[in-house]
């Protein structure tokens, strides 16, 4: 587990958070606090974002992610802390004084203006020459594939088209930083998926820095190079999608990002590279030693359902070298066919329930398990994580 994590970390290091030339991040958020009356919406968030990153702020509603984004856009002023963009503090600057643009969740298209005038709005305010505005608008229209729609009003467009106009309008001024507030929330599932791809492609092509706010962990995982998870105003973990999924820092994050099995227990012994934990309802489990030494004795063992394998009979022979294998006996209590995979619930003899997701790699279901079937649940010590919080 430890080695594998190092590998994940190394892969992350290749994605620089700092500007390649100056070593300075494009955006530095430093101890930012925002209160609304007695409620602390953002509680001392510090974060560096490098040029060209696609960064996602992920969290449940009310966690402060949108407030943080609005502070970057200038709609809220932080009560404490600094926001440095390219080295200068913009924390108290007004929205129109910042080289930052935002795409709103409601799109906020001006209903009295045509598509063309909506896109040109920011350019006119910047005092751009007429001919240049026409060129830039044409460029933006082509970029978001809205050719032929220039004269339409927003109410004559479909949801997907409005989303594109909003994107073009926010990109037209070529901001140093583009903020996207739940940009895909209003689209249906199919359109959302294709738009995710287009946004990523656009961000790569323009080399612009995007910060997206979303409550959809799948969306964040798909698009972002790094994800910052927020809870109750605090940034609880900043990591690559992979690290966030495979090495969550707390039980809360593990449960928020994807599906997970959690078993509480007491730390029993520490051997070479592995620890043994006596869980309350899943017997004794062997887990690879975590990066940071375990401080507490009451911990949780977390394992993702797709890493939990099932078998019809006990596996024989334990490998002396390599990871230890945890084996648990139980009865299948629930089977749910999902197309690409099948989700099983297994009632363990030790008392707990474990969820397992098995990919359907063959059309015939000769491998499928049925309800009430006795099975052996197994996973290696490398596939699970010890969580203290």
């Amino acid at each position, binding site marked *: 587990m430890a080695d594998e994590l190092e590998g994940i970390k190394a892969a992350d290091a290749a994605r620089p958070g700092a500007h390649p030339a100056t070593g300075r991040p494009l955006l530095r958020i430093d101890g930012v606090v925002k209160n609304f009356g007695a409620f602390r919406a953002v509680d001392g968030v510090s974060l560096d974002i490098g040029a060209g990153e696609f960064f996602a702020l992920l969290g449940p509603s009310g966690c402060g992610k949108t407030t943080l984004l609005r502070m970057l*856009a*200038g*709609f809220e002023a932080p009560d404490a802390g600094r926001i440095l963009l390219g080295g200068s503090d913009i924390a108290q600057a*007004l*929205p*129109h004084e910042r080289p*930052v*643009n*935002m795409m*709103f*969740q*409601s*799109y*906020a*298209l*001006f*209903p*009295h203006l045509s598509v063309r005038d909506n896109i040109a*709005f*920011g350019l006119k*305010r*910047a005092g751009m020459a007429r001919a240049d505005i026409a060129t830039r608008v044409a460029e933006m229209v082509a970029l978001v594939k809205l050719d032929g729609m220039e004269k339409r*009003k*927003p*109410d004559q467009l479909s*949801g997907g088209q*409005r989303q594109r106009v909003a994107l073009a*309008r*926010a990109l037209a*001024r070529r901001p140093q930083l583009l903020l996207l507030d739940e940009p895909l929330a*209003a689209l249906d599932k199919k359109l959302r998926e294709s738009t995710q791809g287009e946004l990523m492609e656009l961000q790569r092509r323009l080399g612009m820095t995007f910060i997206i706010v979303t409550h959809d962990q799948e969306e964040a995982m798909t698009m972002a190079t790094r994800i910052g998870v927020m809870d109750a105003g605090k940034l609880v973990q900043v990591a690559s999608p992979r690290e966030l999924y495979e090495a969550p820092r707390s039980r809360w994050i593990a449960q928020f990002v994807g599906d997970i099995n959690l078993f509480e227990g007491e730390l029993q012994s520490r051997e070479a590279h592995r620890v043994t934990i006596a869980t309350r309802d899943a017997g004794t489990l062997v887990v690879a030693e975590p990066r940071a030494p375990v401080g507490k004795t009451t911990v949780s063992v977390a394992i993702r359902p797709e890493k939990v394998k099932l078998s019809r009979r006990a596996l024989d022979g334990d490998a002396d070298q390599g990871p230890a294998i945890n084996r648990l006996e139980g009865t299948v209590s629930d089977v749910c066919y999902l197309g690409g995979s099948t989700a099983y619930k297994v009632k363990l003899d030790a008392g707990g329930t474990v969820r397992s997701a098995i990919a359907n790699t063959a059309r015939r279901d000769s491998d499928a398990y049925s309800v009430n079937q006795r099975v052996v649940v197994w996973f290696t010590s490398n596939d699970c994580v010890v969580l203290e919080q």
Partner: protein
Amino acid sequence: MGKVSRLSRFNVASLALGLAFLYLPILILVIYSFNASRLVTVWGGWSLRWYREFFNDRAMIEAAWMSLRVAVASASMATVLGTLAAMALSRGEGFRGRTLFSGMLYAPLVMPEVITGLSLLLLFVALNAERGFWTVTIAHTTLTMCFVAVVVQSRLGSLDRSLEEAAMDLGCAPVRAFLLVTLPLIAPAIVAGWMLAFTLSLDDLVIASFTTGPGSATLPIRIYSEVRLGVKPEINAICTLVIGLIAIVIVIASLASKLSSSQGESAAPL
């Protein structure tokens, strides 16, 4: 659209009765304004005689001119004040006593006019203000600004707040964002509010009679004092003209607010 629901005979009858109740007196008034006879209740054939009479009646024309000036001036002042009040109430969501303020703004809507008129009269007397055009105009502004505020506030409430933020984000200072985005979107409501204030001022008798002074009677006051001496057919002619004017204004106002609400739908977030 499926089946067109049909009116039953009872519905038709009650509708006709209701409309007759509302409009028969006005219809009779309009018809009799074209009466050639000097007697109000005797039909003497069609004529525009009383309209001619009115246009030659200097005192009546002056009163009508006074009323129009008061209506335009007070409607304009009420529109500015009412719009500002509506903005303060719909934007400043957090400020203390907001509920109290909006309640206080709406109170004059249900306040008996006699009380409003009397209190304003006492105020003007206390201030030793010379009563005339300006006192009536100010009094009408107090009466009508809350109507404007209600109309504009409902429009502002349906407007997506992020529209103004988007304008600021795209390089507008707050005042510019208001002028370029919010104002065009609430303009129909402002126009409707102005029209409403104009008609309210034009037909007000109670408050005007409290707050006006000698030599500056408004049209309703003038008509009322004439009628006390006996109804001349000329009055019918004047009233028909006023009805015509108000009808035009009301139609424009309702068209404006219809335009406003149809834009509102497109402005609403998805």
